[in-house]
């Protein structure tokens, strides 16, 4: 890449102030410690023209303020040279503050403040303050509690209203009713100079509920943030070759059919293209699951997402970005994701049962006392007591607190969970389907062995191969480790020709070496010829991941069956299936075949899909729950519920184990809070629950639920830890 091209690239990301000051945000995904901060900041501060550089470790970003005469390319170079990968962030994406989190935290603090203050007064009243002073204390409590409930209760009121509007009830409906009823009856009680007002209960209820809600939101936000940092490593444009031979950076959305693009090794095709210039090797692993590189020559159609391997290639865009292979896959994926949207969380299902029950109980209490002749005041007070003690405080905490603890443990193991509901779905999984290329295998070719020829020809082949950076040649060179030859010539799309002791050797494809390709073998094959006579051939296979066998064995041990759904050829899929002990292996599947296969598997029970490719994305969306390794295509990672950020497959059995544990804890927690309700509901209906008892019961049940959830941190997975 030329420095000139770099500039055009970067200026798109520089924000200019009115006073000539400029600002650039770089993502530095590898920064994690104090030394990282110091290294980056000192390196940047030492540059002329840089006014200020500050690393934000939480977001893994650095913000650089610099003067107009400073070249932004030197900034990224400096960060790269100090040892940190970096890529610019679009100014439009920089200020993505989370307003929902802000609202929740503000509400949490306000409700905490209000509950502390109302509790001061309530304690005084419980200790025996009476008469006018009690009424005064209640009025002060009302002064604090009413605005607090109105302000901090907004997230619940909004959600309850939205649910009621479409004719459904969610957990927030009984919460909202209890909050309003409690505050209302307390004002009434204070007005009548009564003995029992529940301002402390209303604010404390809100405080506990907001803790659960905020934790849940923080967990999702962290996962989103980490996932979007990964996504931003993807190309957001390409180098466009103009008619006069110069190169300019063009954004992804501005690419139009007919434009000529120049792609370097390591670039992914931004849109669907046709090769127009010289030939080169292209990795299609993410696109169709084919493990071995494909030779692309002029006229070859390549889908978006294919990776350029050994040399720059020139392509002409054939479709706009909005209609590329990736975009079409994303559209199919949305259609396939119905399984997820149809799924309702266990907490919502519990509240479906719970909410009507509580409201009927409260109504029955009111009618019961009224009919018994207690007067509407006592009847109403007892009915509200029922609403308060049965308000699903513990119930609302029971599920999110377990999910938060689980997400923390998963994160420590390098697994990113996007959503708590995914954990619930994972616990039910009976079958795991794996993609092969890039998931069970590394997706990089490895020498399997010499397939014919007498004698060991590897040293000669390896020495010739050292001259090329074609992936197969590199695998061959790595296997033999011979020094590079002096007299070598690489012929694009064919192979390498070398002269050793006056003899002409050729290493490359069948045509180049004059061999007959019978199409056999399980992977790719490279031939070696001496003076036009074929002397040997070498086979390459896809390297199986080190932990793939252990992963499959552990899953079988957990009572889960496995299968392979691959787009690759029968031979290489068969070899991987045999080595890993997976009985059910399907090959040569197109993306829609994978979806059909997942649907078929779902007939027998919930299915988890593990895959990394663009061709897996639709299947990932169609499965009940899905995993993607960090190296997966963006579209696949976006579809997956779990991202294996440390790229270790053993995360799958660990997540399954944890999901089952978490499911057991959620059920325990729900049972605990139900049991608590069964005990206190008759007491409240009988009019025996004073504000003091309500406060104690409510907080103790919440604490029990939280402590029970924390047990998830203590247990280790039996037999799984050994294989770390």
């Amino acid at each position: 890449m030329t420095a000139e091209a770099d500039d055009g690239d970067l200026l798109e990301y520089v924000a200019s102030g009115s006073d000539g000051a400029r600002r650039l945000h770089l993502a530095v995904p590898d920064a994690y410690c104090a030394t990282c901060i110091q290294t980056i900041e000192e390196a940047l501060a030492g540059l002329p023209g840089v006014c200020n550089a500050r690393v934000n470790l939480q977001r893994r970003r650095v913000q650089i303020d610099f003067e107009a005469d400073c070249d932004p390319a030197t900034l990224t170079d400096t960060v790269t040279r100090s040892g940190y990968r970096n890529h610019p962030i679009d100014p439009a994406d920089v200020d993505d503050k989370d307003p929902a989190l802000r609202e929740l935290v503000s509400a949490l603090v306000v409700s905490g403040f209000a509950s502390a203050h109302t509790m001061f007064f309530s304690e005084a009243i419980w200790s025996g303050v009476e008469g006018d002073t009690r009424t005064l204390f209640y009025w002060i409590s009302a002064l604090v509690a009413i605005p607090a409930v109105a302000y901090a209760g907004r997230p619940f009121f909004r959600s309850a209203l939205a649910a009621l509007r479409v004719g459904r009830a969610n957990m927030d409906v009984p919460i909202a009713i209890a909050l309003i009823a409690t505050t209302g009856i307390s004002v009434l009680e204070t007005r009548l100079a009564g003995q029992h007002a529940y301002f402390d209960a209303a604010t404390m209820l809100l405080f506990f509920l907001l803790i659960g809600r905020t934790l849940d939101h923080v967990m999702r936000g962290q996962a989103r943030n980490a996932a979007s940092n990964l996504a931003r490593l993807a190309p957001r444009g390409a180098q466009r070759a103009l008619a006069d031979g110069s190169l300019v950076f063009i954004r992804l959305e501005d690419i139009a059919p007919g434009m000529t693009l120049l792609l370097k090794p390591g670039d992914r095709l931004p849109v669907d293209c046709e090769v127009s210039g010289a030939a080169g090797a292209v990795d299609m692993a993410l696109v169709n699951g084919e493990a071995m590189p494909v030779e692309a020559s002029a006229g070859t159609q390549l889908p978006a997402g294919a990776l350029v391997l050994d040399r720059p290639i020139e392509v002409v865009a054939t479709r706009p970005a909005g209609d590329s292979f990736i975009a079409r896959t994303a559209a199919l994926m949305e259609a396939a994701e119905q399984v997820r949207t149809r799924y309702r969380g266990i907490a919502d299902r519990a509240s479906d049962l719970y909410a009507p029950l509580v409201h009927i109980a409260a109504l029955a209490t009111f009618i019961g006392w009224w009919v018994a002749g207690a007067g509407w005041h006592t009847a109403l007070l007892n009915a509200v007591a029922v609403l308060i003690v049965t308000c699903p405080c513990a119930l609302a905490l029971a599920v999110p607190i377990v999910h938060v603890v689980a997400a923390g443990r998963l994160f420590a193991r390098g697994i990113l969970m996007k959503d708590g509901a995914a954990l619930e779905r994972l616990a039910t999984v009976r079958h795991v389907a794996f993609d092969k290329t890039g998931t069970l295998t590394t997706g990089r070719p490895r020498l399997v062995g010499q397939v014919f020829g007498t004698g060991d020809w590897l040293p000669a082949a390896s020495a010739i191969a050292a001259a090329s950076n074609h992936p197969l040649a590199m695998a061959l060179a790595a296997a033999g480790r011979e020094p590079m030859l002096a007299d070598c010539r690489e012929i694009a799309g064919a192979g390498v020709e070398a002269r050793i002791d006056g003899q002409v050797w050729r290493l490359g494809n069948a045509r180049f070496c004059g061999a007959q390709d019978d199409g056999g073998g399980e992977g790719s094959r490279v031939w070696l010829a001496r003076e036009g006579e074929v002397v040997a051939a070498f086979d390459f296979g896809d390297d199986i991941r080190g932990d793939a066998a252990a992963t499959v064995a552990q899953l079988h041990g957990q009572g889960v069956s496995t299968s392979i759904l691959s787009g690759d050829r029968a031979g290489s899929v068969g070899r991987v299936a045999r080595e890993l002990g997976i009985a059910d292996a399907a090959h040569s599947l197109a993306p829609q075949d994978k979806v059909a296969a997942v649907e078929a598997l779902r007939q027998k029970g919930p299915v988890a899909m593990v895959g990394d490719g663009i061709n897996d994305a639709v299947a990932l969306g169609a499965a009940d729950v899905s995993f993607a390794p960090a190296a997966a295509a963006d579209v696949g990672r976006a579809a997956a519920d779990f991202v294996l950020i440390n790229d270790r497959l053993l995360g799958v059995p660990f997540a399954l184990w944890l999901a089952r544990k978490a499911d057991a804890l959620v059920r325990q927690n729900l049972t605990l809070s139900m049991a608590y309700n069964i005990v206190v509901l008759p007491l409240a209906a009988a009019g025996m629950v004073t504000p003091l008892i309500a406060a104690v019961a409510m907080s103790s049940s919440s604490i029990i639920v939280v402590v029970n959830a924390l047990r998830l941190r203590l247990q280790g997975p039996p037999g799984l830890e050994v294989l770390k």
Partner: protein
Amino acid sequence: MSGLIVLVVSAMGLGALALAGFFWALRTGQYEDIEGAAQRILLDDDMP
């Protein structure tokens, strides 16, 4: 009774002050980089 008024008002005032302090911190971005702030303690002060 007058003592009570003083205590109630001062308790509420202190609480409100803390609340205002929190909102100030939230608005001025004190919580933007909690992890970084924790790590920066380990750095030397004589940074150029």
